[in-house]
């Protein structure tokens, strides 16, 4: 009985510590950049009839954590990528410092639109916990 109680207390303590860690530890990322790339040969493959999506319809960023959208054109031809025309070999880094939902015209999408959602920096324990949960789900 004592052993079982001890196991329960230790499990509860570990769970509490884990939840506390996820809710109290500040959100950070190794880089503030979210990178998307048009690989070499994309245009040629599109011309051959392949359906290639280089950008998702919705991109999620977080102010103060991962808030710089980086687009890279590694193809041999100019490409309309997100909101802009990019030359071969060119990079485009677009920072976002205000949480909001941004709409961009984007001919690379069938809808002609691209949405960038910039979430606010998670300042409270609950916000950090839900941010981590959402981030995990999006990654999966």
């Amino acid at each position: 009985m004592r052993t079982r109680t001890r196991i329960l207390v230790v499990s509860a303590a570990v769970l509490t510590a884990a939840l506390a860690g996820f809710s109290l530890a500040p959100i950070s990322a190794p880089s503030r950049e979210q990178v998307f790339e048009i690989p070499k040969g994309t245009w040629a493959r599109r011309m051959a009839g392949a359906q290639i999506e280089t950008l998702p319809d919705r991109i999620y960023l977080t102010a103060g954590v991962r808030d710089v959208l980086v687009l890279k054109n590694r193809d041999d031809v100019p490409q309309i990528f997100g909101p802009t025309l990019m030359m071969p070999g060119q990079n485009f880094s677009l920072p976002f410092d205000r949480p909001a939902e941004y709409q961009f015209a984007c001919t690379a999408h069938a809808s002609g639109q691209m949405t960038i959602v910039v979430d606010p920096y998670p300042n409270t324990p609950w916000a950090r916990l839900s941010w981590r949960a959402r981030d995990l789900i999006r990654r999966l």
Partner: protein
Amino acid sequence: MKKLLRLLTATLLLLTCVATAAPLAAAPGTFKSGVFDPPRQAPNFSLQGTDGHPLNLTQYRGKVVLLAFGYSSCTAVCPVTLHTFALAVRKLGPAAAGAVQVVYVTVDPERDTRVRLKQFLASFDPTFIGGTGTPAQLEQVRKDYGVSARKIPYENSYVYDHSSFTYLLDRQGRIRTLMPYGHSADDFVNDLNLLLRE
């Protein structure tokens, strides 16, 4: 057991301290607009300028150029963009403002005559230069800059769904950054100052 609880309490306290630390702020001296790397030379064009002279982009080498596309009948995006430009230029002060040129290219040559475009721009700032031309000329300019403009019937007339961003060109005539629609005059002042200081 007491040891474990003490350790847990200490961990929670430490995490609370770390959690209250402020998030990373944007580094000072960085652009608010999107940066091209490497920058490319802005394609030149020859249009009819609202000042009555041919409008060539190359004539503004040595100045920082705000290049945007729109039309005078626009009731949504264009007035906001041009008002933001005017406010930014005023905030820069007379000395710096002289080194900045706003160039506004119409997407609506049917209605935007030179005179009409000039009056429209002058209502924001008389130093702003507009460019108009034949539909084919303007289409080529839009193609060179990745600008879209779609004519949409509206009531008895039409409107344009057009790209709303602004290119910032440096003194060498290179496309350095792209400012999406909706940024404040202060953001433009920040980026213009960075380009003017180079």
